[in-house]
């Protein structure tokens, strides 16, 4: 499976919920036999209003440039994360969630990648 199978796919619960705008991985702490830890698929970020990427504005500390941040927050309003455990099927251009799936906030508080600092 490649990432393109997931990005942009339409997500369904009992009704259409939106499109996959990003795929979240989590580094596993116990895989020390290689330079980077293994990365497992944690969940899908689903946006009800757009297929486009949030351009990094899902990071809670990124709020500028203000007009673009406001536009991105508006475009991605009500975006949510569904965990792998809540995915029932991956079909061509369609992802079906399990009944009673949980919506988590798509906000990213701290990632595994250090943020660049601009002086």
């Amino acid at each position, binding site marked *: *499976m*490649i*990432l*393109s199978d997931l*990005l942009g796919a339409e997500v369904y619960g009992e009704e259409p919920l939106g499109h996959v*705008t*990003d*795929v*979240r*991985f*989590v*580094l596993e*702490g116990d895989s020390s036999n*290689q*330079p*980077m*830890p*293994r*990365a*497992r*698929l*944690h*969940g899908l*970020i689903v946006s009800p209003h757009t297929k486009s*990427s*949030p351009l*990094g504005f*899902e*990071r809670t500390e990124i709020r500028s440039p203000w007009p673009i941040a406001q536009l991105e927050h508006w475009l991605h*309003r*009500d975006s*949510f*994360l569904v965990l*792998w*455990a809540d*995915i*029932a*099927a*991956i*079909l061509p251009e369609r992802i079906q969630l*399990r009944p009673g799936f*949980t*919506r*988590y*906030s*798509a*906000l*990213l*508080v*701290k*990632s*595994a*990648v*250090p943020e*660049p600092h601009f002086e």
Partner: protein
Amino acid sequence: MKRRHMLDPEAATGRVLDAQLHLLDRQVHDVASVPVTAVSDLEISDVDSIQNIPPGTPAPQLIALLSGPVLGTRIFGGRPPPSRLQRIAWSDVDEVGVVIRLAVKGETLDATWAERWVRDHIIGRIPGGRHDPE
């Protein structure tokens, strides 16, 4: 009304990578900081019965970075055939930052075969093409 969702349990652990944000389109440098390629796509391990995933199925793993000619397919749709995509194993990745740094030399990767072929078969046959400029 603005909906509030529960915070992702991993969101603040510092162990999260978002594919679009942190991996796709990033430049890849080898162990000597020589640019190798850019990330066009990611290969994820296959899941049995993907069209009906049983509860408790282990999550797929990220197994490789893919690079290849994706500009046309991003504009017009579709995807390049798998044979046109070069793989860089995730186990060869050393660090993810502004660029993705590998723990191996670029010379050992399929992603640089075209550059090596041009060097060996074209540039190398030009007089003076086999050594640094003086």
